[in-house]
């Protein structure tokens, strides 16, 4: 149920009843069906944010005061003091659970303080005993200990901190030859909380910003999973990932208003356009070289990694199929991107590939830009039209400054494309006149 829709209906009902469109009895039945009017979120959000900020500042201040006198204290005293932030976090969380469990501000503030206090306790112990710098172990322990906070206090901030912690650990594991594949099961441990929150209202701000965090962390984790030979697959995997985000957003979160409420569409679109722009240059295609020793990996987990990164292209094709059935033009165009990336990946003739594939992506980005502009005009949405114009502008700027192309090539291409725009414009104007 979208709370904004309910609010809209309640705003409309008095006018509709007055005009006789619905009777007073039906209006009352509708009110009873949807329940009391949802309260404004802005004040509650402010209180929640101030609660979180206050908790963070208090925690930071206490740490600084302790740090000032740290050297004067004996080791056993320092070890004992290391527990104080954690005990304070546990005490606050326990009190909130007993007395203030209905207050979002208190829950989120307590959860933030509790999550940070775990890391503080471990850091203080590390300082006391001069513990070595295995940052990955530190992040993993801190993150896993913080996971129960997500469910005990039903906290979005704790969920976000957990996902950021897992993504950070995965990056470190990737660099230090750890088992970064654990990223995927670890991330999924907090998904039930998101599911439960989104089930009530998928357009609630809390759901939107959690999905922002999740989408960014998954983008990072995907990169961390591309190890050894798989690293060359990055363009196919990321093309698929961003396409999945775009199409999933359009399928499940299409009624969100604005960029902030459409995290999957926003990140997916930015990723598709950004990656396509990169692939319009020769450099990525020149460095591609997966053919030589693809199957020779001795890594025991190589096949698991392959399975994980294959999921994105498979998911992209499934969503694309759904978009085709829905007759979703923007979805149909975007879904082509993973196929184009796969085409370039499979093209063995390096000389031809580095000339052909940039042109392919030029055409793709041109099609995306034009489709977006047309879609915006059809739906009378200026923001969409502007987005389409931005895509086209970026493409033009990229080609204008592309030193791999000669002046003549660039000049002729611009003339041809510009003529194409003018012809299309004339065609559209004629169609509009006929329609009138």
């Amino acid at each position, binding site marked *: 149920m979208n709370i904004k829709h309910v609010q809209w209906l309640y705003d409309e009902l008095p006018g509709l009843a007055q005009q006789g469109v619905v009777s007073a009895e039906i209006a009352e039945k509708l009110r009873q069906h949807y329940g009391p009017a949802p309260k404004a979120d802005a004040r509650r959000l402010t209180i929640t944010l101030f609660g979180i900020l206050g908790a963070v500042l208090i925690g930071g201040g206490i740490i600084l005061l302790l740090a000032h006198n740290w050297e004067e204290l004996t080791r056993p005293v320092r070890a004992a003091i290391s527990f104080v932030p954690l005990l304070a976090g*546990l005490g606050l*969380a326990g009190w909130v659970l007993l007395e203030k469990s209905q207050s979002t501000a208190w829950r989120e503030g307590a959860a933030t303080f509790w999550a940070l206090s775990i890391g503080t306790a471990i850091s203080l*112990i590390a300082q006391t*005993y001069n513990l070595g710098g295995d940052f990955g172990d530190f992040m993993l322990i801190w993150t896993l200990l913080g996971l129960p906070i997500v469910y005990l206090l039903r906290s979005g901030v704790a969920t976000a901190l957990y996902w950021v912690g897992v993504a950070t650990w995965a990056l470190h594991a990737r660099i230090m030859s750890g088992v970064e594949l654990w990223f995927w099961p670890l991330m999924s441990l907090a998904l039930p909380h998101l599911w439960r929150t989104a089930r009530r209202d998928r357009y609630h701000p809390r759901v939107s910003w959690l999905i922002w965090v999740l989408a960014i962390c998954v983008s990072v984790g995907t990169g961390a999973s591309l190890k050894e030979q798989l690293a060359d697959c990055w363009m196919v995997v990321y093309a698929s990932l961003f396409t999945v985000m775009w199409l999933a957003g359009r399928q499940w979160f299409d009624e969100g208003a604005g960029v902030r409420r459409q995290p999957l569409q926003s990140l997916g679109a930015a990723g598709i356009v950004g990656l396509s722009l990169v692939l319009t240059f020769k450099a990525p295609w020149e460095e591609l070289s997966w053919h030589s020793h693809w199957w020779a990996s001795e890594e025991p987990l190589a096949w698991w990694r392959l399975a994980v990164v294959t999921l994105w292209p498979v998911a992209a094709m499934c969503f694309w199929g759904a978009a085709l059935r829905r007759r979703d033009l923007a979805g149909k165009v975007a879904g082509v991107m993973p196929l184009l990336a796969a085409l370039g990946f499979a093209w063995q003739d390096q000389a031809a590939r580095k000339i052909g594939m940039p042109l392919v992506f030029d055409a793709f980005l041109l099609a995306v830009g034009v489709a977006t502009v047309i879609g915006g005009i059809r739906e009378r949405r200026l923001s969409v039209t502007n987005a389409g114009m931005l895509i086209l502008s970026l493409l033009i700027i990229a080609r204008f400054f592309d030193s791999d192309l000669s002046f003549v090539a660039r000049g002729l291409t611009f003339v041809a494309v510009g003529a194409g725009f003018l012809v299309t414009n004339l065609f559209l104007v004629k169609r509009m006149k006929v329609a009138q």
Partner: protein
Amino acid sequence: MKSSKMLIGVFAAVAAVQLAVPASLIVRHELTLQQGTVFRFKTAPVDPYDAFRGRYAALQFEENRVRLPTDKHFANGQKAYVALETDRDGFAKFGAVSDVAPKDKPYLRVHLAWPEASGAQVRLPFDRLYLEENIAPAAEQVYWQNNRRGQTNTASYALVRVRNGTGVIEDVFVGDKPLTQLVREQRKK
């Protein structure tokens, strides 16, 4: 009512685990400091711009490579156990490497980096000394003066207690004096 009792029960269990983890860290390292075998790890020359980061001294050690057994394969980043011995100058040196903990001699639990035929680099579990921020700049100066490349007159070393694979730095010495004591003496001058 039943669900809130269950919630409190779960909270108590989580709290117990969260307190147990740092407590176990303290107990393990405190026991190592109280009962561990003493080893002196000679520190290696440093680049003056790399030695100190923030409020701790990043330590490098001369003993940082180990020979690998020919009958076993070690992967990059793999955990291993390195036996510890003492050379004729009384400084620590690495003995045999194994994927199981030795039973009859002191050892450290380490991670191996870049294993190859000639050996591997060892990532020790101790690589820093935390210092108060007021004395950190002076300590950096003293440490650098005694650890420049080519310097041979003053031996710097970390005094480390080792127990059951865990190693804890007790202090860092320059010659016979702890680094922090040297710094305080210099400041008084």
